[in-house]
């Protein structure tokens, strides 16, 4: 064992009670840091999950973000050309060559995609009319990119595949029209095409507007209804890691040319709120560790004062100032490492305990669980923060110890 480490351990074991108190501070700090930050990050993830549950991670529209570069600008690049009133083109016929684009997107890793043809339609039933958004979907693909299947309370999306004339509607609409599973309803497209459809599924998302206005049918049926054979006007994309949506959307837009909007872009305001919330949370939980580091500072300062004579002896023997500093920094590191290990264990225990808590908020029928997030980086952040605060706490006493002048101490003792 290196001599500096042995001296450091001797100092710590020689003052069991103070070391224990410092250690307890770090253990509790790490444990609370871990438990609270996991809870907050868990609730953040839960919130984002709810935020993006009913909307796709990336939507590719049949629109362009910028107008095309005009031929004159290409021909005389850098020339004094000004072309006014150039607008981004809108493909009224949907996304061109969507199958190739679909294939390209599917070839990207960690990502699922579904083609959709969205249009307006009017539902006519028993003399009542209601305008709705009718989306033509491929049930197998839709299930992979949307949580709609989980929201079904009656029937299923798969029933669309079995019945080309099927339609899936929300509870709001079903109540309004007093529709049930198996009932027929007349659907009229904007161009006048009309067709009776059978309700094969009813969903409830909890969003009243969504439940009243959104309807789904088979893609082929929608293409016929809207008279857009072999066309889609949306690609809905779901990512394994929703946080890569921004980059993925940029890549898709670069290749496909069409406007690709990530959920991050669509809900930037809410995300900035979450960032502020994280900053608040980390500063509060860090405060616990900062308080704990005062305990370490106190212990090490006491040791330095008590051991001035020993430090003088070591320096007279030929120890450098940095050897002495190292001894006290090691003491901080030892408290930090041991405290982190026990703190992580205790914190994991707290997280386990929190995740078993179930409660029922007033007015909500479902039981809610504490959303704990078991992310490895929470453990890493807690450990890193504990070590940094321990080393910082040890730094001042270590510097003071390094400055001990042996002659002053020896002269005083003689």
């Amino acid at each position: 064992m290196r001599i500096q480490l042995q001296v450091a351990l001797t100092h710590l074991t020689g003052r069991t009670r103070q070391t224990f108190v410092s250690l307890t501070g770090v253990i509790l700090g790490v444990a609370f840091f871990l438990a609270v930050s996991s809870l907050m990050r868990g609730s953040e993830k839960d919130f984002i999950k709810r935020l993006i549950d009913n909307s796709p991670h990336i939507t590719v529209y049949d629109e362009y973000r910028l107008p095309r570069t005009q031929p004159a600008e290409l021909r005389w690049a850098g020339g004094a050309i000004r072309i006014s009133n150039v607008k981004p083109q809108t493909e009224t016929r949907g996304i061109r060559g969507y199958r190739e684009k679909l294939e390209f997107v599917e070839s990207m890793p960690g990502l699922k995609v579904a083609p959709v043809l969205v249009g307006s339609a009017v539902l006519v039933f028993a003399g009542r009319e209601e305008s709705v958004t009718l989306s033509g979907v491929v049930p197998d693909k839709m299930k992979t990119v949307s949580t709609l299947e989980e929201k079904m309370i009656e029937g299923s999306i798969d029933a669309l595949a079995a019945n080309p004339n099927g339609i899936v509607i929300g509870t709001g609409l079903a109540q309004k029209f007093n529709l049930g599973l198996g009932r027929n309803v007349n659907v009229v497209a904007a161009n006048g095409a009309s067709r009776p459809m059978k309700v094969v599924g009813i969903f409830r998302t909890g969003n009243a507007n969504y439940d009243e206005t959104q309807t789904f049918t088979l893609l082929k049926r929608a293409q016929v209804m809207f008279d857009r054979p072999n066309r889609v006007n949306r690609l809905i994309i779901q990512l394994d890691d929703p946080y890569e949506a921004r980059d993925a959307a940029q890549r898709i837009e670069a290749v496909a040319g069409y406007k690709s909007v990530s959920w991050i872009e669509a809900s930037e305001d809410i995300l900035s709120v979450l960032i502020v919330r994280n900053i608040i949370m980390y500063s509060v939980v860090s405060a616990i560790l900062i308080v704990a580091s005062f305990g370490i500072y106190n212990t090490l300062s006491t040791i330095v004062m008590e051991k001035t004579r020993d430090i003088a002896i070591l320096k007279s023997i030929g120890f450098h100032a940095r050897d002495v500093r190292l001894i006290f920094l090691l003491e901080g590191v030892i408290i930090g490492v041991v405290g982190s290990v026990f703190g992580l264990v205790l914190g994991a225990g707290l997280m386990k305990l929190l995740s078993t808590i179930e409660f029922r908020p007033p007015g909500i029928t479902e039981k809610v669980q504490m959303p704990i997030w078991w992310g490895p980086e929470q453990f890493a952040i807690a450990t890193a923060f504990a070590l940094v605060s321990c080393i910082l706490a040890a730094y001042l006493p270590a510097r003071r110890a390094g400055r001990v002048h042996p002659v002053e101490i020896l002269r005083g003792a003689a």
Partner: protein
Amino acid sequence: MTAVLRAEHLGRTLAGEVPVTLVEDINLDIERGEFVCIMGPSGSGKSSLLYLLGLLDVPTSGRVWLDGEDTSAYGENELANRRLEKLGFVFQFHFLLAEFSVLDNVTLPMRRLGKHGDAAIRSRGMELLARLGVAEQSAKHPHQLSGGQRQRVAIARALANDPLVVLADEPTGNLDSVSSATVRQILHDLAHQMGKTVVAVTHDAEFASAADRRIGLVDGKINADWRPA
């Protein structure tokens, strides 16, 4: 023959509102294998001179030569390295580390130097303890030893890295007469049998009688330097 330790116009003044001169214009050549005693009344600056010769303190004027090297240009770390390799200290109050065993105390300088493996360091530590007659105390802690035993352990520690010079500050100041005689004999043998240079500060005339050379100090200046026949 070149001097192992040489002081050239050595002076040390403590800065302050009223500057205090500890030693002044000391010129001294100490040869290899000499047993030198520095004597003088308290406050005469003998300990200060020892700290300067031992590179623990930095002179405000003049310079110290150790083993033919001028140490005046050296920084703190270089001085520490010289202390580690070429000098050994024995203090009045043994100054052993209380939490360390006797053997750990003796091996401390060797482990800092790091020239030998753990096994070699341990065996050399035991050898030194045996030579000083305290080998059977190796596993004990300093507080379990008598004053004389502690001082012998401290001498063993001073010898750990086989230094050229052993500097002792009132090594018998805290010991009974029997232990004093033992320590005196040990330091004498270090010089005469092992060829170490021993410089000891004392105000004990009996101790000084064993030395080859006595240097008297009054008010920070040498007032006597003689070798008894």
